[in-house]
């Protein structure tokens, strides 16, 4: 019951938003819906309701985490959106806001769906609703970004579908009553056909990996994140990627149950390191701050995949990292959005001294950089440290070393750009009209996300720890 409401609140809100005609009032739908959704999520996590719709929609531990993350991130972004759209009065947001809300619905559905096909549909929905968001600015560049995103992610999602089919097909032989429910798949994975399982995993990894942005399927990310508004970037990098990661995790669980632990872990570790390496290479000397953030997201996805691949405690770290990454990306993209708005550019040739011109956004941007690169006392440090611990204690010494090296390169590449942006003297403004200043609505979300990231760095709430442990145990299935 609760779950149904949870999914339908954003849908209704979207309908309402589409109905409202005033461009000024419409944004306020977002915080309201987000607040309701968030409150409801908390109650749901507390009550832990039974699955509905024949078990198609229910809560599993990793799903809970993603649900919590998406809802929180969306709440933060929804406040920001109101403030942001005040500076974009020239453009109608009648498409943007419903899309955002549908996106929330889709993400919720992904988190709650216990059925292969349903999850796939939900992810496809999020993918499709994302396109108009990226296209919000209506510039040729944004069209290009949208086109690339749409084509790549559609192909990816198609591959994922084929992969799902393979997954089912693998278990068809000796399973009298086949079903797409994950619980069912896991139960019968032992008897499933290994070869088909492997093929299925490859396709699903590539397919959902495209959504997640693992190299080399990441190519849409820099363009899309670069051209989309900051808030959309935050939602993509924090929410969508987490949903895709969740999908991969669920599939991985089936394969583990099918006795393919080593196989999938090798694949995940390989893809993870590849993504981190690619991100590191493209971050060095990056001049465009939003593209830089996109590559940082690629790197983060690499870390997640690596953690999932190493498994055990590393998986705990990966899930924690997923949450940290979501919130930190919120900090970074939102503050980058403010900086972009204030300077009218996101290129390091024009953007200097953000800490002087925008004390809040500049500082948060700097701190976000430190956080995302795994410096204490921020959240990501804890998760990265956990993954590293697990890697070494599982005697992946070589992989651990490469991991550290890549982290270092990423730090150097990202730091160069960020320091150019935040330090120094700002150039004199070209135009005086409609100058952006940090306001309450665009500043508060930054502070909120910063505080959350800081808190996760020094104190992980017990309930979260419990959920993480649940998720870790959930993923450890016997073949």
């Amino acid at each position: 019951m609760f779950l149904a409401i949870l999914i339908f609140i954003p849908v209704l809100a979207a309908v309402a938003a589409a109905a409202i005609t005033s461009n000024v009032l419409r944004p306020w739908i977002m915080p309201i819906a987000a607040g309701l959704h968030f409150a409801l999520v908390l109650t749901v996590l507390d009550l832990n309701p039974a699955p509905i719709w024949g078990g198609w929609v229910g809560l599993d531990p990793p799903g809970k985490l993603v649900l919590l993350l998406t809802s929180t991130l969306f709440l933060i972004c929804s406040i920001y959106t109101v403030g942001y759209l005040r500076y974009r009065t020239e453009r109608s947001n009648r498409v943007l806001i419903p899309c955002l809300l549908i996106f929330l619905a889709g993400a919720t559905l992904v988190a709650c769906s216990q059925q292969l096909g349903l999850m796939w549909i939900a992810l496809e929905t999020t993918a499709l609703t994302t396109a108009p968001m990226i296209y919000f600015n209506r510039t040729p560049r944004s069209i290009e970004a949208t086109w690339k995103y749409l084509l790549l992610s559609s192909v990816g999602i198609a591959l994922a579908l084929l992969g799902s089919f393979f997954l089912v097909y693998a278990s068809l032989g000796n399973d009298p009553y086949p079903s797409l429910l994950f619980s069912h798949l896991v139960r019968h994975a032992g008897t499933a056909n290994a070869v088909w399982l492997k093929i299925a995993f490859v396709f699903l990894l590539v397919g959902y990996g495209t959504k997640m942005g693992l190299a080399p399927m990441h190519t849409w990310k820099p363009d899309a994140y670069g051209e989309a508004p900051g808030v959309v970037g935050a939602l993509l990098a924090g929410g969508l990627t987490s949903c895709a990661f969740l999908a991969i995790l669920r599939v991985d669980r089936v394969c583990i149950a099918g006795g393919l632990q080593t196989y999938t872990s090798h694949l995940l570790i390989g893809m993870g390191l590849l993504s981190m390496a690619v991100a590191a290479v493209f971050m060095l000397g990056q001049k465009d701050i939003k593209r830089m953030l996109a590559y940082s997201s690629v790197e983060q996805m690499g870390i997640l995949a690596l953690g999932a691949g190493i498994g055990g405690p590393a998986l705990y770290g990966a899930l924690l990292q997923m949450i940290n990454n979501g919130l930190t990306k919120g900090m970074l993209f939102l503050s980058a959005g403010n900086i972009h708005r204030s300077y009218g550019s996101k290129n390091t040739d024009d953007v200097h001294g953000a800490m002087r011109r925008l004390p809040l956004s500049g500082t948060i941007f700097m701190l976000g950089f430190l956080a995302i690169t795994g410096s204490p006392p921020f959240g990501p440090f804890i998760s990265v440290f956990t993954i590293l611990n697990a890697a070494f204690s599982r005697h992946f010494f070589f992989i651990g070393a490469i991991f550290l090296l890549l982290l270092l390169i990423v730090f150097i590449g990202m730091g160069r750009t960020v320091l150019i942006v935040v330090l120094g003297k700002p150039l004199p403004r070209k135009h005086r009209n409609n100058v952006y200043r940090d306001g309450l609505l665009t500043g508060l979300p930054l502070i909120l996300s910063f505080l959350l990231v800081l808190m996760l760095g020094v104190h992980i709430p017990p309930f979260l720890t419990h959920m993480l442990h649940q998720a870790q145990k959930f993923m450890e299935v016997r073949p």
Partner: protein
Amino acid sequence: MHWSINTPLVIVLLLNLFMLGVSRMRSLIYSAAAQGVILSALPLLLEKQIDLMIIVVAVVTAAIKGLLIPQMLHKALRDAQIKREVEPLIGFLPTMILGALGTAVSITFAAYLPMTQTGSSTLIIPASFSTVLTGFLLLTTRYKAITQVIGYLILENGIYIFGMLLLAAVPFLVELGILLDLFVGIFVVSIILNHINEAFSSLDTRQLTALKE
């Protein structure tokens, strides 16, 4: 009953090759539509007993794949006034040969794969593989946005073919979901196509390389 399945599949394969080789847009669209219609008939051939639901699904599929989407593409074509795909990344003949090779490879590959089901010793798996491959080839070698959309369609067709193996297992919802997504996806795509056309006054994706390092 293998022949009843394999014949249409062979036609599908031939269509793949044809689509790889043809340069006229209209014939490309038509053959894609034809492929869609043929595929929509497959469930009827596969199922032991035909109930209403299957027919409905088949009809809807045929309508979308055979009418709706081709219509959209035609419209986009008219707006953009393009007749044919010129200078693809790889020439037409080479792509054809690649497609043929791909088909051969997928047949052999499928032969190696263990068949988990009796009665699936048909062309279904190789056909779906090679169709997916064809879609990919179209997507990667052609520059016109529309051709890429068609490539994506073919890709979905390949997946649909594989879906035939799961008719028993997979409830219809998924298939309908696929169709829905396909429909919405193409819908969004056509809008974007429209905008691309307005912004760049052409559908040549080589112009879409402003975003770079």
